[in-house]
């Protein structure tokens, strides 16, 4: 008999020969094997943001890819890096996902230089989602600051696709300047077809002085919140959360019906690298979507 220790070949595990399915979290899979995807369109939105339409190349992987509004993917450009990006398209769109990306650093900067046809990798979807199922029968307040509108597009599409399930939907959107308002070209459709109430405000209206000038909380003067029957979703820069959520609490909205989406540094999306640690947990696993009660219990979350 030999004293060779028996070799265990992980590749022979049945689940390892299948396409990774990040929705089946407990299964052994190739966690670093991204879905090869083609950038099929790149739409410049502002000087700093572009919208990328990304289509998973393999038909089988494309078919299996399913996400819920609020979740994110890890987008990889081999040799350059990998970044977490919220999905900004309809969860019923099986053909491609839309990612709206701001140019801020190494990877996002390189992404902005790409041409349609480039192959990138995506892993995911990861993280928690907005509780669309719990919101059924309620009014919804969607509150966005700046880039915060990006993750809210997905629930907006969802609401439209299930319009009779929900009551009044109000979108409150604040930006620095009129030129930084994203997806303004869609507002008309969202108002007329989706039946959304859209309120925008800019900090500095500039020369034209069109629209309202001020900060996002000023918009609360224009609406009545039925606190017994409303859910709120807040996305934006960290400073915004505090003010907006304080305002919502004052109007009587329970903290468990207020949701925020947090941002942290991320290197895995799977609760392994610890970089997205917030309080006692990880943003990539228990977030990015948290209810406000949880946020209050997580140290230094906002």
């Amino acid at each position, binding site marked *: *008999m*030999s*004293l*060779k*220790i*028996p*070799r*265990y*070949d*992980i*590749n022979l595990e049945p689940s*390892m020969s299948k396409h990774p399915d*990040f929705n089946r*979290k*407990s*299964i*052994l*899979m*190739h*966690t*670093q*094997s*991204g879905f*090869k995807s083609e950038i099929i369109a790149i739409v410049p939105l502002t000087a700093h943001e572009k919208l990328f339409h990304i289509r998973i190349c393999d038909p089988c992987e494309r078919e299996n890819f399913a996400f819920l509004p609020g979740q994110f993917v890890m987008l*990889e450009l*081999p*040799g*350059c*890096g*990998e970044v977490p990006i919220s999905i900004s398209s309809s969860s019923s769109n099986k053909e491609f996902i839309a990612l709206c990306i701001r140019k*801020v*650093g190494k990877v*996002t900067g390189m992404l902005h230089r790409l041409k349609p046809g*480039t*192959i990138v*990798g995506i892993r995911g979807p990861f993280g928690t989602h907005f509780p669309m199922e719990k919101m059924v029968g309620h009014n919804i307040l969607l509150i966005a600051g700046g880039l915060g509108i990006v993750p809210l597009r997905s629930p907006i599409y969802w609401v439209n696709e299930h319009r009779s399930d929900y009551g009044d939907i109000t979108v409150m959107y604040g930006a620095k300047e009129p030129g930084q308002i994203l997806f303004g070209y869609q507002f008309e459709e969202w108002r007329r077809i989706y039946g959304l109430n859209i309120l925008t405000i800019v900090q500095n209206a500039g020369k034209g002085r069109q629209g309202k000038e001020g900060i996002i909380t000023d918009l609360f003067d224009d609406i009545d919140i039925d606190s017994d029957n409303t859910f709120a979703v807040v996305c934006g820069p960290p400073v915004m959360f505090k003010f907006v959520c304080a305002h919502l609490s004052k109007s009587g909205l329970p903290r468990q019906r207020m949701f925020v989406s947090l*941002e*942290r*540094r991320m*290197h*895995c999306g*799977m*609760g*392994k*690298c*610890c*970089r997205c*640690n917030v*309080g*006692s*947990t990880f943003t990539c*696993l228990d977030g990015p979507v948290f209810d406000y009660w949880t946020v209050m219990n997580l*140290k*230094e979350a906002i």
Partner: protein
Amino acid sequence: MLFKTITRENFKKMVEALMEENEVIGPKARDLDTEGKKIYRFLKLNSFEELEMDYTRSYSSPKNYFLPFKEDLAVYDLHDKGWDQDIHYTIHPRVIIGMRACDINALLKLDQVMAKSVYPDPYYFARRRNTLIIGLDHEPLEDCFCRSMNADTAFHGFDLFLTDIGKDYFAAINSDTAYMILNRFDAKDVTKEDQFLYKKVKSRIESKFKTQVTITILPELMDLEFESEVWKKWGDKCLSCGSCAMVCPTCYCYGIEEDIDLDFSMAVKRKFLYSCNLLDFATVAGGHNFRPRADVRLKYRYYHQFRGFVEAFNQSLCVGCNRCGKACLAGISPKVVIDDLIETEKR
């Protein structure tokens, strides 16, 4: 669990035979410290003589045979039509001899994160399943507080665990592979006397723990004393060097870097172990740092170990080996920080 005894001579033969056909890792003396004491590390053994059965504590932990400091997660072949990804898992068998109970318990904790909860990590999993672990009992050092952490004994997570009971080793056997190997070297059934000797050694070990740390109240204390000046006191001393996490048997956080070669034909995605004490641990694009101060980062290292991990897995992450305390140039150790914290709470 099954038990056997094996004589010292037969143990030597067994290790030598294992070395002939496998990679065998064990504690080796690598250097001398300023007091002239040996510094140990877990390294590949070339002969039985290199194996230091009486080693005190390895400077860094054997976790790196499961979580290497650097590891290529994927290699990319870049070409006109895009790229192809190549992933390899380490699947060659390996033996590690001489792991302490605390280090085995540390592995069990890593198992919780890497193998048993969400997204099992195939890189870790492959290494773990291909490693035969032979544990070894020892008498605690002055500063070991693994008993306070409930990590001073191991009941699983190893293949074989040896306790020196005089002329023989008393062996706890946890896998068929280990059972087969042991039997080839004339292992004997345990006698009443062996069992008596074993219990005596065990209670001697137990009686020698000098350092105690109170942890039962810690999860709550971490929140109550979140703003405590204790964090500032020790944080101001912290050099943010990250040595504590590098030597720790349970720290697992990491970063990712991607490299491309000069002719754009190959790229690699590399994982490297990191530390939450390092300055840019929580820095995001645009330069915002969620933890800009050393005391905040130090606090979160403890917060994860004694609060976050308890919430997730009902146990602390720390196993009480005090490697971090030994490695720290600023004299920061869990014992002093936690004692301080408990002291403040009393005031």
